[in-house]
């Protein structure tokens, strides 16, 4: 190793940590089929989001025997669903669909 190569430069990690989760949370398992599923439809209020999600429900309903929907309209594009809406989704829906935009 030359003298120049032996110089050690220290650099600090500028991040708030690894992007991978370090806790035990995981994604929910994906269902094999939507037969009998209750669909959570989470609209963020932008554009024709509710109409679009309703159409998605109809389309999925032509492929599987759905068992209804839990529709949630967020109070704002900038926030997560309200606690009561989370409770409805987690207790009543077996699958949830949402969109991203803004």
């Amino acid at each position, binding site marked *: 190793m030359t003298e*120049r190569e032996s110089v*050690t430069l220290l*650099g*600090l*990690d500028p*991040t708030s940590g690894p*992007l991978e989760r370090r806790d035990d949370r995981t994604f929910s398992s994906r269902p094999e089929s939507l037969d009998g599923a209750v669909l959570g439809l989470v609209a963020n209020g932008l554009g024709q989001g509710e109409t679009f999600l309703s159409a998605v429900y109809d389309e999925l309903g032509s492929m599987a025997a759905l068992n209804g929907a839990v529709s949630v309209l967020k109070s704002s594009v*900038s926030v997560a669903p309200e606690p009561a809406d989370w409770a409805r989704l987690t207790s009543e829906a077996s699958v949830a669909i949402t969109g991203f935009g*803004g």
Partner: protein
Amino acid sequence: MVNAERHEYPSYDALLDDYIERGWTDGLPVVPPSPEKVEQFLEAAGLNSDEVLGAVPTREVVVTAEHAAINAVMAGCRPEYMPVVVAAIRAHLHEKANCHSTTGTLSGASQIVIVNGPIRRELEINCEGACFGPGWRANATIGRALRLVIRNVCRAIPGFLDRASFSSPLRYSFCFGENEEASDWAPLHVERGHSADQSTATVHSTMTFVPCVDFTSRGPEEVCESWLGMLRRYGVFTDRFLGDGQNLVLVVGPEHQRYFLEAGWTKDDIRQHLWPRFQNPGPGDRPVMLGSPEGLLIVAAGGPGMAETWFMFPHLAWAITEPIQSIHTETGRR
């Protein structure tokens, strides 16, 4: 004492290659953030490394002074810029500055830092000709430091939590000062309740940044009519989360400003003239959804020549103004 993980490199080139490989830069070279330099920056701001500057709850992120210092070093800041960087981060992490939305949005909104008060001249933050462009170390590196924090600490990484379709070159860096000496107009920070000798940083998340060029108007009412045409074409939108606090920033160049000054118009006179006209959009006009005349923020800047005013249309956020804490103690620590 800094706590971040340390990495050793045999050369600057090796460090730079590794930082780029890890996704820790904006694509441009960075200054190596050595522990000594980071300590120096913390000292300059009078902050302990673990002092919390803010958080992004939806991302489970807490931003500390150490994060700010590391990224400010990387951005090329001088230590004395650090208090401005800290104020800008605090402003951006205000709940209503809406970090999660404004840095994740498909629209590629950018964060603009406007500096007021004596520190502009002390740090040579450009407020005059070419103040939006390259060539000014303080402007370039303070704005870049905020964006590196947004990327590295707040995790707004393209393709991950930054979902911009095109993004924007304004996201490399955007910082300038108000030209407070150009007139007797009340500076932005004074209008927002700070004393004239208190320096501040205002952060405004901007979706659309466009000039209103008008060489023909010769009076304040005519210039206002040109502005109204632009405002009605783009509009200002809001949502329930933001309530009535949304802001629109107009940066008035000297060629337009002089018509107002010659007629004796203050910033508030401009707002009072424009406000009723916001309330009456015509067919095809987009609404200007500001909660009050004070939602319109008027800033003087730029150089002579072009008769223009620049519009900074918001992206679902309030413009937040934070005081810059100057250090006058022997140790630097507060």
